[in-house]
């Protein structure tokens, strides 16, 4: 590690320590469940593993093993430790296995996710039919977050430990084997599996597994056969088990085999058969139905799409198109490009500084012209290389090309211009470029798709052709990226380099026939020169010519009324179609004094005839012969012309971006129970006045609440401090049968020794809410008018039902922040990566950056200008404007809390948001249990959370539309308590059980290591893409290359700069448009404008995937619906025969009405009609419409037309 990195971390940790001290002092004074901060700091992975598991000595042992072996091997070594009792304090053999399995999963998930605690419910010993014992591992749904490898290895570790402690193998009964097969099918249907093993494969695994896999019921659906088995407690699908068997063992068999073969104690010879697919012998009766499913499975990997059959006739190299991303299209989320469609996004390789790690770069002008549906952070579902991307704005790539209502065809590279011309756009001929970094292809193991011919490639071609590129770069008169036409032609001819990309048109999108027509048109055209320069090429207006020009996206003007098409900057274009301009000077013109006005005319001569084209050029094509003119171009043009955009990427909108405060529903200010007394709003003030009957005391409510006891004076209370003597109290456990007080044992278990039942401290008691509420207000010195409403919770869901002091809620309500289930205040943002930043875009000044330890820019120059780029430090994050504001409110709440509740000095004292810069926060992702410490470096107007990709990876997120939250550091330290967490499955997820104070790049999600960090992709890379090479064959520096070196925190270079990390619309139109109808209309409207989108297909899909399921579902629901009492809310399975509510005599009504059934009917019919959908779709709608009429209309009293009333 470099000294400056060490300094950075020490600084963060010092800051953390300061905050910790304050929090510790506060906690000692207050009435929190624990008198100390409940989030332990983990400096490394070993610490996190130990903290998450709560098993002592694990961290030390992990550190010992880490240097010597891989993590998987360490998990196995730890299994030995558990078996022999060196680690963990387990007496039973089942306990030892359990400890080993949990530790293995924790180790393999770097101690971040909740899977080891939430995903494994327990391990128990059961009996085989021969009386021997075997191990049963009981999985739960959250094992999902561990991933396939860790899941599979957990089974292996269980088996290994089993062998070591001397337990027999599991012998599955035949009905259990069958049950596994049926259950996995059921789970796949209900929830879906990434990989679904065939029945015989499942049975083969089940028959051979030495460990029984079991688990909690997850779905509602039950298996139909093999029910009520003795050793399986449920008839529902067991989700955790299904995941481990299918996505773990079946999918990761080769990975586990590596370890089984190294271990003597255990023997899984059947794994080889599984890998080879040799399980058929044992189930020979099963019919062969491999083809369909096998294809499906290989497609899922994203790989295998590169089928280059040698027998194929010669043609351009193209990536295979895939429809998959269009599945489940939703109304209101538009398609931007159909699979590999002309006019769609053009693949450009490169990584912008706000890019990489499952993101895609789009020009901000494109975002605006796609009617603002794309904004920074919007998720799209994409054709390749992965499944989804988060969208980032990149303005150093090509913008879209559009045709305006006035006939102008223009490429728009300026977001401002895009906004100005937006209303005049008639058609979007080309969506512009789509920036994807090399690392995406590595991560998805996707063969490189043919690259567009772009500046980065051309400049290397030019250099290879012998040009002194350095000299050209230094020449201030030359703009290498956007040269004028003459210079481009000169380079192309004098250096024998391909034509500059800016003058390379999309010849591969026109046919050879169209190309000939174009050449003719040019030869018959004339050049008009009004003033100096090259003038304008004027062609006769013709539909074929117009279409071809639009397809190759040459900027031009269509003037059909005047019968002409005008092209400026026409020279490279004319040369490319094989037409030579010849100047014809009128006789004696030089002597003519008026020569200045009558310039020489230019004639264009076609230098080739159709017969000159070779057979190859004439038949060159992708879908059909001769549909690609690129070979013809190269035969007639006086220079090489590359394919401008051989790869188009289809995509559609996924989720919109997010930047919102996280509120429970309804929002909660205090985790204090008030039952139903607060009404549906859970208003504490109302509850304090509530009385069931006239005789009840207002505010006295019976609640389920944890009982605490003061050891000092024996007072019973539910508070954490004794109301009498202010000593801390402890939970008062009593046996529910014999009422004996029970003290928890060392493991925290509270079991009554006599009755052998679990003791509990939860009791129903009457609580005077009015008194509590008034006391709390008084104690923090606030009055009721300090806030609008204070909301509590109906009941507590934690094991001990310890309530939070109401005082905290009072102050939260005052500052309008609300609490999550664990007591913290959170703000959610879509994750996006950024590796270098400018002070200007972060709304900070250099001074602030310098104060944070930023000294030089990315080139090593001292920081002097606000627009210098600096490399972002690994734990620094950029807050969205909304997040900053919310953090300010939280900081005010914390300050008040410290002053008014804990009696300490305020901690933050923020006047404006600039002062937030440098403050620490927690980043925390769902499904994980570890928070990562981050530091605020600035702000952005984009509705996303930009941070270093390694920061996101440390939280186990990538940036393909994932979102997670930030919390203010002191809020987490003061207000988080494990005692508040729900005791149901998954309750410990998304809670900061531990925090990582520094990021070790080796301990993050390794997906981030595949991000490339080079400043340029070599020429060989571009050439390799044309052969659809494997990404591994190309040498470009990726994060993995610097792991473990001094440079692991630095040198994240990029190939494309961006002006600002927040460009384009701040919010996606999806969020700004109102109703679903408005969104859908905008979606269909956009689909009409886009050349790359088939609007009929979009309409079909919207009807098929959105309207029809809604209509059919609601119609079905209508004819079998429940009813509900409008007065008391009581529900009835069937309409009561009395007609009225049986509970209260109130009015009962339907829960599904005609209005909710047919709300989309007319729209769907209209859309089907307007967009010319298939008859099949229209007929389905017709049949449904008739059904609706039949149900909702009286045959004898039909709604008639208006004429009946005239």
């Amino acid at each position: 590690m470099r000294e400056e990195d060490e300094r950075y971390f020490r600084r963060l940790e010092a800051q953390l320590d300061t905050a910790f001290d304050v929090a510790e002092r506060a906690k000692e004074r207050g009435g929190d469940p624990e008198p100390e901060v409940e989030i332990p700091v983990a400096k490394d992975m070993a610490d996190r593993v130990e903290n998450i598991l709560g098993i002592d000595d694990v961290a030390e042992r992990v550190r010992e093993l880490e240097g010597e072996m891989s993590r998987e091997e360490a998990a196995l070594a730890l299994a030995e430790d558990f078996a022999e009792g060196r680690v963990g304090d387990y007496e039973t053999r089942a306990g030892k296995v359990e400890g080993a399995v949990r530790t293995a999963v924790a180790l393999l998930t770097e101690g971040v996710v909740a899977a080891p605690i939430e995903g494994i419910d327990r391990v128990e010993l059961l009996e085989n039919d021969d009386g021997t014992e075997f191990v049963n591992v009981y999985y739960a749904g959250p094992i999902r977050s561990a991933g396939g490898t860790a899941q599979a290895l957990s089974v292996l570790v269980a088996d290994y430990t089993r062998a070591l402690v001397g337990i027999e193998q599991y012998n599955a009964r035949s009905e259990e084997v069958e049950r596994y097969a049926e259950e996995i099918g059921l789970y796949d249907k209900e929830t879906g599996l990434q990989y679904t093993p065939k029945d015989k494969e499942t049975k083969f695994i089940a028959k051979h597994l030495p460990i029984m896999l079991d688990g909690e019921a997850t779905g509602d659906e039950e298996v139909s056969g093999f029910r009520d088995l003795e050793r399986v407690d449920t008839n529902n699908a067991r989700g955790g088990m299904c995941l481990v068997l299918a996505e773990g063992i079946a999918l990761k068999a080769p990975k586990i085999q590596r370890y089984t073969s190294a271990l003597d104690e255990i023997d899984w010879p059947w794994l080889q058969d599984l890998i080879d697919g040799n399980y058929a012998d044992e189930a020979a009766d099963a019919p062969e139905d491999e083809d369909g499913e096998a294809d499906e499975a290989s497609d899922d990997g994203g790989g295998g799409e590169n089928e280059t059959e040698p027998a194929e006739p010669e043609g351009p190299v193209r990536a295979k198109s895939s429809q998959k991303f269009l599945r489940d299209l939703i109304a209101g989320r538009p398609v931007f490009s159909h699979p590999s469609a002309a006019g769609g996004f053009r693949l450009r390789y490169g990584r912008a500084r706000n890019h990489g790690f499952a993101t895609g770069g789009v020009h901000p002008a494109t975002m605006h012209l796609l009617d603002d549906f794309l904004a920074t952070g919007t998720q799209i579902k994409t054709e390749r290389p992965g499944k989804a991307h988060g969208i980032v704005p990149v303005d150093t790539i090509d913008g879209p090309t559009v045709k305006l209502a006035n006939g102008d065809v223009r490429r728009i590279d300026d977001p401002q211009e895009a906004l100005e011309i937006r209303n005049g756009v008639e058609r979007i001929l080309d969506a512009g470029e789509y920036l994807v970094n090399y690392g995406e292809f590595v991560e998805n193991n996707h063969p490189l798709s043919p690259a567009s011919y772009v500046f980065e490639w051309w400049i290397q071609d030019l250099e290879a052709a012998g040009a002194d590129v350095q000299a050209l770069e230094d020449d201030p008169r030359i703009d290498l990226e956007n040269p004028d036409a003459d210079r481009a032609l000169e380079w192309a001819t004098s250096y024998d380099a391909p034509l500059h990309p800016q003058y390379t048109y999309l010849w591969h999108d026109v046919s050879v026939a169209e190309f000939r027509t174009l050449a003719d048109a040019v030869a018959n055209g004339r050049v008009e020169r009004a003033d100096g320069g090259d003038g304008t090429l004027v062609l006769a207006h013709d539909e074929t010519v117009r279409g071809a020009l639009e397809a190759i996206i040459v900027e031009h003007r269509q003037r059909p009324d005047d019968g002409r098409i005008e092209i400026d900057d026409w020279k490279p274009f004319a040369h490319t179609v094989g037409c030579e301009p010849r100047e014809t000077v009128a006789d004696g013109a030089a002597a003519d004094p008026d020569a200045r006005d009558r310039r020489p005319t230019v004639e264009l001569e076609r230098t080739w005839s159709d017969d000159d084209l070779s057979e190859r050029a004439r038949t060159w094509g992708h879908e059909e012969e001769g549909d690609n003119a690129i070979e013809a171009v190269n035969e007639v043009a006086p220079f090489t012309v590359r394919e401008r955009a051989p790869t188009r990427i289809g995509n559609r909108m996924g989720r919109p971006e997010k930047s919102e405060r996280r509120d429970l529903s309804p929002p909660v200010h205090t985790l204090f129970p008030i039952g139903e007394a607060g009404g549906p709003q859970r208003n504490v003030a109302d509850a304090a006045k509530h009385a069931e009957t006239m005789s009840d005391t207002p505010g006295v409510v019976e609640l389920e609440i944890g009982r605490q006891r003061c050891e000092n004076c024996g007072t019973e209370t539910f508070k954490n401090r004794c109301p009498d003597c202010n000593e801390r109290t402890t939970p008062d456990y009593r046996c529910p049968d014999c009422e004996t007080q029970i003290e928890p044992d060392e493991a925290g278990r509270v079991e009554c020794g006599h009755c052998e039942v679990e003791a509990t401290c939860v009791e129903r008691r009457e609580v005077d809410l009015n008194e509590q509420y008034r006391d709390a207000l008084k104690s923090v010195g606030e009055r009721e008018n300090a806030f609008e409403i204070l909301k509590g919770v109906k009941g507590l869901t934690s094991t001990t039902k310890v309530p939070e002091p109401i005082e905290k809620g009072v102050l939260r309500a005052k500052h309008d922040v609300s609490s999550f289930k664990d007591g913290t205040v959170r703000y959610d943002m879509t994750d996006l990566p950024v590796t270098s930043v400018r002070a200007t875009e972060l709304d900070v000044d250099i001074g602030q950056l310098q104060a944070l330890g930023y000294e030089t820019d990315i080139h090593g120059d001292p920081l002097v200008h606000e627009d210098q780029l600096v490399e972002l430090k690994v734990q620094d994050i950029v807050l969205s404007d909304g997040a900053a504001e919310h953090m300010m409110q939280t900081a005010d709440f914390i300050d008040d809390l410290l002053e008014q509740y804990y009696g300490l000095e305020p901690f933050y004292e923020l006047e404006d948001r600039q002062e937030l810069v440098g403050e620490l926060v927690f980043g925390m992702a769902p499904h994980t249990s570890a928070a990562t410490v981050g530091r605020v470096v600035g702000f952005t107007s984009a509705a996303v959370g930009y941070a270093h990709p390694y920061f996101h990876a440390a939280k186990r997120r990538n940036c393909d539309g994932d979102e997670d939250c930030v919390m203010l550091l002191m809020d987490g330290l003061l207000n988080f308590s494990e005692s508040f967490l729900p005791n149901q499955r998954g309750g410990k997820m998304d809670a900061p059980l531990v925090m990582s104070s520094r990021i070790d790049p080796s301990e993050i999600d390794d997906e981030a290591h595949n991000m490339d960090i080079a400043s340029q992709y070599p020429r060989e890379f571009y050439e390799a893409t044309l052969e659809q090479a494997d990404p591994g064959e190309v040498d470009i520096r990726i994060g993995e290359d610097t792991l473990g070196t001094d440079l692991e925190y630095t040198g994240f270079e990029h190939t494309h700069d961006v002006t600002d990390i927040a460009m384009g619309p701040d919010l996606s139109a999806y969020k700004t448009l109102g109703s679903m109808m408005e969104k859908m209309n905008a979606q269909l409207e956009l689909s009409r404008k886009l050349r790359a989108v088939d609007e009929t297909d979009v309409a079909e899909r919207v009807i098929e995937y959105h309207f029809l399921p809604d209509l059919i579902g609601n119609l079905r629901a209508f004819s079998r619906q429940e009813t509900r009492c409008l007065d008391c809310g009581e529900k009835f399975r069937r309409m009561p025969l009395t007609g009225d509510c049986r509970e209260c005599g109130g009015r009962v009504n339907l829960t599904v009405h005609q209005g909710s059934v047919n709300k989309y009917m007319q729209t769907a019919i209209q859309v089907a009609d307007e967009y010319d959908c298939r008859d099949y779709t229209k007929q389905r709608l017709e049949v449904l419409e008739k059904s609706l009429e039949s149900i909702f209309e009286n045959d004898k009293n039909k709604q008639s037309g208006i004429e009946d009333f005239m």
Partner: protein
Amino acid sequence: MPLEGPARIVSELTSRGYNAEREAVTRIAATENPATTLEAVLEDLPDDALVVRSEHVDSLLERAPVSDGARTTDPIGSPTDDGSDSGESPIDDGSGSSESSAGDGPDPTEPSTRDTSPSTGDERPTSRPTAAGGPVETRGVQEGSGRSADPLERSLEIAGDMTGESTGTGEYGDFVSVFRDRLERLGSKLRGRVNHRPATAIQSMPGGSEAGMVGLVNDVRSTASGHWLIELEDATGTFPWLVMKDREYADLVDELLYDEVVAMEGTLADDSGIAFVDSMYFPDVPRTHEPTTADRHVQAALISDVHVGSQEFMSEAWNRFADWLHTPEAQHVEYLLIAGDMVEGVGVYPNQDEELDVVDIYEQYEAFNERLKQVPGDIEIVMIPGNHDAVRLAEPQPGFDEELRGIMSAHDARIVSNPSTVTLEGVSVLMYHGVSLDEVIAELPEEKASYDDPHRAMYQLLKKRHVAPQFGGHTRLAPEEKDYLIMEEVPDIFHTGHVHKLGFGKYHNVLAINSGCWQSQTDFQKSVNIQPDAGFAPIVDLDTLDVTVQKFS
């Protein structure tokens, strides 16, 4: 092989605008080259003739024999020997294949007809020869016309057709009316059997009294100690009835479906909050029920689930069936009842279009109509819709709308609602498509209802006197002013389809028939391991209610 079977000859004739006598068709089919004969007959036909009669064919054949006239030896349509007097069901696959037309009696190795007996409940319907007496081929040819020419002997009446009578508008009150009507009408069948009291009255009776109640089953749950608590609801409220697990009625609890009407009698507990059940009654079919039968020997073919338009529609089997209807063996079949799912439909399940042979729903019905045309014109047809048809799914389902009726114009078939009761020469047939069978089979123990014995599930419906009692589950209900799904009168025959399994038997003398289908195993059925009974036509003798199954697949 064009025009090889009578059915094709008929359709060829229809397409040219002619009707034909069955005998004429038989004769044409019997010639060596039916196509040529047909052409010759048509050429020879008087200009004003609309119907091709046997005389026309005869006169032609006499004048210019197109074939060698060996019509009795031609296997098509007139098998030389089908062993029809053996007491076994006749072997006839209708295809004229060598097996059945070999002329040496029933093939003992491959009885292609299903054994009709073992699935019956109370009574074994004996299979009998379709044509009483001598060898069919002689009778068929010698007696000439075959099917009764006298329409006066036939009678066909429809009851319970709600087509055009759907007055419900989907209001809450409509639902309440339906269930009240159910309690009222089915309850009236039970009120005589118990000393019934309204639920509210029972609530105020003293502990220990005897009480009876008639109501809808509102809830069934088991208690911690394994007894059953059944909540009955009537127009006044609900009352809980406890069935002790060791009492004889405990077994019946398994059979209960929500919202069926039952009566219970028992003793009130001391605190009057609950009653202990001593006896339980269902509306049921009286054991003494005597079915009505036809006065003459006449038969009806009961089929369902044709699924035209599906890639799995068994065109060949249907052709054989239609051909068979033209044979003398089928001369007594004068009625054809089709219990729903004429076509495969559109949008019945996701991505159905990929598995359709005919994607257009109207073309599906046109194709179905072509299939109807193959059926002899002198057979009366009654049809109800099913869940694949283009009508509402919620029951009762009205018959097809005018547009679809226009398409299915062949034969002037009677199109009525699902369910409806059709009375054929005195024999009442309750036709119901059978969607509720899925639910009965799912909810009841396997020994009481299963896909292998669909008629046993039908017995349960007969016992409940309701075709689809349970609300809120699988079956969809469209509220109408009254409950059209009740079996107010006991039918003589109960005919359903839907589950694509063949099964029949008698329950308290009511013949329950679930006809099979005309669709071979679909991918979905394969995935859940259902083997459909495809290509069978159960034929019922209306004078005896005996069943013969004809196999065409």
